[in-house]
């Protein structure tokens, strides 16, 4: 131990007990590796979700009530706008818009927060070595909780419209899970790129803003079919938007009806979240740790 220069410090052999600090995760197992990390750190994940919720509402006088109040006020505006001012015939229209706004809000918020997850958590990332997917997972789950609470505002509408909860309500959690997985998956795909080129976040902020209008929030899938005709190529183009099916499912789940989709549209809408999550987890696992030094 006496030498003070370091010409060849590693004259001994590598101990077999040492484990590679950055083991190569085979690409195909990345989707599972991420889930494994999340379940391993579920205590931390829970604490982070709690922190996010607190950060948002704790200081406000009305606290968590804001999760309800915000969409409720929005719904009131729609009600005034469409039912009272425009004398819209369909009394359920404001509720359908409200459902669209909640679903779209879930998708857009998860997408934007995941795209910039590495940049916005740079301070903590540089101080702690826990898996990077925890940051976006905790933000996404926070948004899932907020949206789920927001859904309570639909209840007064259901009472007003005399709608009974039907067995089709199963579509609601499924649709929200589809939105969650799609947004998180796409976000994971580009989160590392956003560190190198911060322009990515700007592009996605634009996409989520423009997306509001090309998604069935102010309009409905049935309206699209009615205007364009079921066989129109425009319908196929509009259905490339991965949120059309889940948002429509959300609306129908409350109305107690089954939406009438073409089979290939359903297949696409179900495959989209799965495929982008698989791709996203692969890209994120392979690249995220390497871009930390650029933060």
């Amino acid at each position: 131990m006496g030498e003070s220069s370091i010409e060849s410090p590693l004259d001994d052999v590598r101990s077999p007990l040492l484990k590679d600090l950055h083991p190569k995760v085979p690409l195909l197992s990345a989707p599972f590796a991420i889930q494994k990390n999340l379940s391993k750190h579920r205590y931390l994940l829970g604490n982070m979700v709690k922190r996010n919720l607190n950060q948002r509402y704790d200081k406000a006088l009305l606290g968590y009530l804001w999760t309800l109040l915000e969409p409720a006020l929005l719904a009131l505006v729609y009600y005034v706008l469409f039912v009272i001012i425009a004398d819209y015939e369909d009394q359920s229209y404001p509720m359908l818009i409200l459902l669209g706004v909640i679903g779209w809000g879930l998708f857009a918020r998860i997408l934007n927060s995941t795209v910039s997850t590495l940049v916005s958590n740079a301070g903590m990332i540089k101080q702690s070595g826990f898996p990077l997917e925890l940051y976006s997972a905790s933000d996404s789950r926070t948004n899932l909780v907020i949206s789920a609470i927001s859904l309570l505002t639909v209840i007064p509408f259901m009472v007003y419209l005399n709608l009974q909860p039907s067995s089709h309500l199963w579509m609601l959690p499924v649709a929200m899970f589809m939105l969650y997985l799609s947004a998180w998956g796409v976000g994971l795909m580009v989160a590392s790129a956003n560190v190198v080129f911060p322009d990515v976040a700007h592009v996605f902020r634009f996409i989520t803003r423009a997306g509001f209008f090309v998604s069935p929030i102010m309009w409905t899938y049935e309206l699209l079919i009615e205007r364009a005709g079921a066989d129109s190529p425009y319908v196929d183009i509009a259905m490339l938007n991965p949120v059309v099916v889940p948002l429509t499912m959300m609306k129908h789940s409350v109305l107690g009806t089954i939406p009438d989709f073409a089979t290939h549209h359903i297949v696409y809408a179900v495959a989209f979240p799965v495929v982008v999550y698989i791709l996203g987890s692969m890209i994120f696992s392979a690249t995220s740790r390497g871009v930390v030094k650029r933060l």
Partner: protein
Amino acid sequence: MNEQVLRLEDVELHFPRKEGALSILKRLVMGFFGKSERGPRSCGLSEINLTIQKGEIIGIIGRNGSGKSTLLRTIAGIYKPDSGWIGIDGQTSLLAGVGVGMNKDLTGRENIHLYGSMLGHERSYMDSMMEEIIQFSELQEFIDEPLRTYSSGMKARLGISVATAVKPDILLIDEVLGVGDPGFKKRSQQRIRDMMDDSNTVILVSHSFGLLKEICSRMIMMEKGKMKCIGTPDEVIGAYHEAEG
């Protein structure tokens, strides 16, 4: 006795410098024609070869920007080296900037859970340590108040109290020994030393040579991202003063 817990082989890490769009485009075009060149970068670490045995206490010194913290973060797995190999036997825990990740709107108690889980603890462990942590921090009467009502000294005390409840296999410390008022500082230094006795292996970055000389079994001096020298504390501190002139 010859039990390796950490080994770095030819570790290199470069920090890319910010580059304009035109420059990136130019490099892409050049790359297309087979003349690939690297973007601008600065050296973070290079030629790091190091083996640390179980039970060692390693002190790292060097001037600002010499790569001390970068080395510590690379060992903690935060930075991934561009090349080289790092092998580790056990769990590391990095104490740096006490209280990072604590939240001002959560209560002291909730922050103990949050910060503790960030340091890699399970709920059961944090539950069992809770009373001891609160006692050590001397914040009993404030513990259910939100952190924003704390003074900066109180925040630091809470942070240190949680951080020092850790018992990892390899403890990495980055200059956290000097927070709080003198009384607390003395107690926390004592606690960190106890912790060092409990943890098997400690690597710490510090500027307090007196402390390092007292506790380290070996020291490393960093310069411009390289290990300038490694040896006994006397040798390395001597070399540091020599280099400083």
